[in-house]
């Protein structure tokens, strides 16, 4: 998975995401790089659509919940993998930079992967703190993600809150997540 840094310039400061430490770094404004040129040259139309939908949420599509996640054959693998990803994210974040490149292809799409992960940790309140492992789980287990999906990590400035979410096929993978709209992407994984 390719990572593209998307620094945010906010009232004289520059905010960048450090993917190895997993945190937002704030620096005094330097030169204002035009990152859009890089994105325009090297992104497929499908992924460009996902990014555009985050910039303009009124382009976003929404899908109905399906039960496809219940029918996967290797559910036990998905469970083990889900719990491992979650534990690593919470206790050993730098290792996530390795796992983010996995492609297990367990689910037909990101929506199914998302619902499976919610079933793994049914308490909706704790799911609020599991956005990153959930997003990595979805990105690495959805068959469509490699070609049609984008993982976003965003910041809600000027607070220190961060959030991670997936857009695939121009749709949010997570039907329970209404928060993504407030977070300005600082890093994009394609």
């Amino acid at each position, binding site marked *: 998975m390719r990572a593209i840094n998307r620094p945010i310039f906010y009232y004289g400061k520059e905010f960048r995401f450090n993917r190895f430490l997993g945190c937002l770094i704030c620096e005094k404004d330097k030169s204002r790089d035009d990152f859009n040129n890089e994105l325009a040259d090297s992104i497929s139309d499908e992924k460009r659509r996902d990014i555009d939908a985050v910039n303009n949420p*009124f382009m976003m599509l929404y899908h109905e919940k399906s039960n496809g996640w219940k029918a996967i054959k290797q559910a036990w693998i998905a469970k083990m993998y889900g719990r491992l990803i979650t534990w690593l994210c919470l206790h050993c974040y730098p290792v996530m930079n390795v796992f983010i490149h996995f492609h297990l292809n367990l689910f037909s799409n990101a929506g199914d992967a998302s619902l499976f992960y919610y079933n793994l940790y049914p308490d909706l309140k704790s799911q609020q703190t599991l956005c990153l492992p959930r997003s990595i789980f979805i990105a690495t287990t959805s068959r469509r993600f490699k070609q049609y999906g984008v993982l976003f990590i965003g910041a809600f400035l000027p607070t220190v809150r961060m959030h991670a979410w997936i857009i695939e096929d121009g749709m949010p993978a997570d039907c329970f997540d209404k928060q993504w709209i407030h977070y300005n992407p600082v890093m994009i994984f394609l």
Partner: protein
Amino acid sequence: MNDKVITRPKYYDRSFLFYNTQTKKKQQDIWKELQEGMWRDFDINAFLENEKQYAIHVEHKDQIRNQLVFPHFAVIEPGHEWNSEKQDSEIVYSPVTLVNGCSRSSLMSAVEEYFSKFSGEKVGVHLSGGLDSSIIMAWLRELGIPFVAIGFTCNRWEFRTERRVQEVMADYASHAELIDIDEHPFYSHIENCPKCQTPYGVAFKDFDISQIIVKRYRDLGVTTVFSGQGGDSLFVESVGKESTLKLAIGDEFEVSGENDMYYAPAGIKLVTPFSDMGIIQQIASLRVGEQEDVPKWWARNYFKDILPRELSQYCYVADMFGLSLSGLEMAKPVTKKLFEEAYALTNNHYFSPIETKRFLESNVFEMEFQAYIDYGARLSVAAWLHALFRTEENNTKI
């Protein structure tokens, strides 16, 4: 402090009433008591606790038990009534009789009847980008009633969906203006906020931007402004199949406080169509059988023919928390002065130099919601005290 004089302002929030626990009677106001020194007995601890409880239990306001903030007076908030048995105020619920046979046509008849009360006036609507005020705009357009739309806007990321809706809804108005909130951030000029009888009524967060918007309405000759207040209840609450519904109209539908403090001084009336019983009855009757609907999908779908797709197909709502925190940070110099003044007046430890220093050194951007509520509550006490002793024109000296 003995020569401190409190004068009753001509305009203040009259929607708050008071229950005298000694005389066992309700009072319209407590200006006389404040002038006699009751402000010194204000219980800041009780106030902070009440604010904290409200933030925790806002979804279940009936369960909140307020502590007295004055020794012998209970504050009766708008839409509440004093319950002698419980020795506390409680929300007043108004019955709404549901009727059969309602339709879009009967609803629009009720809407038209409501707006006819303002015929001949130049009217305005808040251009907020939200669903409720947008529905009002759509109604006015459908009825061929011209209106002015003014609101605030900002360039923040989380506000991008509201900006788009404001852009679309501006076309519904005969004249539309958007004021940049970065020029009038939240908590700016709080030292000038209106005088109130308690910190509960201190409306200082959006004081500056509200003043600017009201002035623009006045300059444009608007005499009545329609607010979308009440839509959050009318379009959200579940409606059972019983023949009567109960709604907290005074608590959730009225805008009398905002009207008293901001609009009345400018000669403008602020009203909300959603508090009209005819409209309430129609909409509630149309929604019979609907479950709780926080995103207001029923309203978005029902009015999709008169609303833009941005509102009928999506339920985005901007989070104002970032704006609030930015405003608090920028207001720190004024906060320091208000705290110093509050300490000189009360000698209360919350405003002591050490506590003020600690308070102002806190990183507002790391605040969670509870800490923000506490911060805002202390600031409202300091702003209230400052405003109490401000001399103003047209006061009635008690």
